[in-house]
């Protein structure tokens, strides 16, 4: 009875003893030693230890990886935005694909037809990449439009008067002519034996010459006054 109850225990002990008595295969130690020799010797620095301990948990590694990818994505977006050139007025006004036709049409009828110049546009990528285009100008004011209209239609002589230097020169010439016209000419020096004459005309006789000729008009000749001193000329 007792032996039958101990039978399972004996079987268990026999199995456990068999597990304990299992012999390792031949050359196990040599293979382990050879594999250990093939392994590089660990050389842990303080930085490696710090990284190893701080990043030991899987969630910590995942978080670090996610943060790294997010930073890289933000940096890439910022870099792309930095490299994109600002829109230029050339690309905004002219379509890149269509060729630009410039027709030089003269207002005066001519013997030959108008020359149509066809210019193939430059590469759009070059224009996009170039950043030296000036800032698009604002619409012209009414005064500027009037000036342009005047420059297209007016007489060149009239246009020349718009030049401030030329205008100043013209004004100076006018002033000089005015002065020349109204300034009395200098009186020629009188001969020493000629008596002094009153230059002012006689109000009673305005037709009388202020400079009477004694030879042609003897009546108008004043009486001789030898003691009169001559008037000095200016």
């Amino acid at each position, binding site marked *: 009875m007792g032996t039958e109850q101990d039978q399972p225990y004996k079987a268990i002990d026999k199995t456990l003893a068999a*597990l304990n008595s299992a012999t390792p295969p031949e050359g196990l130690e040599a*293979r382990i030693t050879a594999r*250990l020799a093939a392994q590089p010797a660990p050389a842990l620095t303080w930085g490696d230890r710090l990284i190893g301990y701080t990043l030991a948990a899987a969630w910590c590694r995942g978080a670090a990886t996610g943060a790294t990818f997010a930073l890289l994505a933000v940096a890439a977006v910022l870099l792309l935005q930095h490299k994109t050139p600002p829109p230029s007025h050339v690309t905004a006004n002219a379509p890149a694909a269509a060729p630009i036709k410039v027709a030089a049409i003269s207002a005066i009828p001519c013997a030959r037809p108008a020359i149509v110049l066809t210019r193939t546009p430059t590469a759009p990528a070059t224009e996009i990449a170039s950043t030296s285009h000036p800032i698009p100008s604002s619409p012209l004011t009414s005064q500027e439009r009037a000036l342009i209209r005047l420059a297209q239609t007016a007489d060149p002589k009239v246009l020349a008067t718009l030049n401030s230097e030329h205008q100043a020169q013209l004004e100076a010439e006018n002033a000089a002519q005015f002065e020349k016209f109204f300034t009395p000419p200098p009186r020629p020096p009188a001969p020493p034996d000629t008596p002094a004459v009153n230059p002012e005309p006689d109000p009673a006789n305005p037709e009388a010459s202020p400079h009477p000729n004694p030879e042609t008009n003897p009546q108008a000749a004043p009486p001789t006054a030898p003691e009169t001193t001559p008037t000095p000329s200016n």
Partner: protein
Amino acid sequence: MDAIGEQALRWLSAESVSAEPAELAEPDLTALVRDYSGLLYRVALSVLRNPAEAEDVVQDAFIRVLQRQHELAAILDLRPWLVRIAWNLALDRARRVKPTQMDEVFAATLVATDLPADQALAEAGQIKQVLSAMERLPKKERQALLLSAMDELSTAEIGSVLGRSESSVRSLLFRARTRLRQRLEG
């Protein structure tokens, strides 16, 4: 899969570190292989029941030891520390290898070679039956029973490997043997 081994290694090194590690000499790795490779092989074989897989586990365990070589001087009790590394590596590998597939061959290898053929066959069948019954035990009881097969390990060391107290290991062993006997009788 290696995370469990890493965790166990860290836990054991934190548990076994002495107060004055500088006074201890660093053990020779070759001496460790000579002294403990057989024990680690049997521990791994009890879990995996495959000699080739068990040998791989032993090699991996010593590579882990090599990677932690600078901590060896601070470890007071090397045997449970090494057994725990091999134990966890074997458990990791056992998830891929089904031990029951190897029961018939493995049982035949465990039988003593000096027995007559008919007796060896009967004994191999009995060992296979016990191994099959052990596989159906609760995990903790099965692990405690397998580790108790190693004569070199005391109950305290088994508790250190399993992370349990000595009394808990004794209780696990008693329940495992009782349950196994009942299943073998039934």
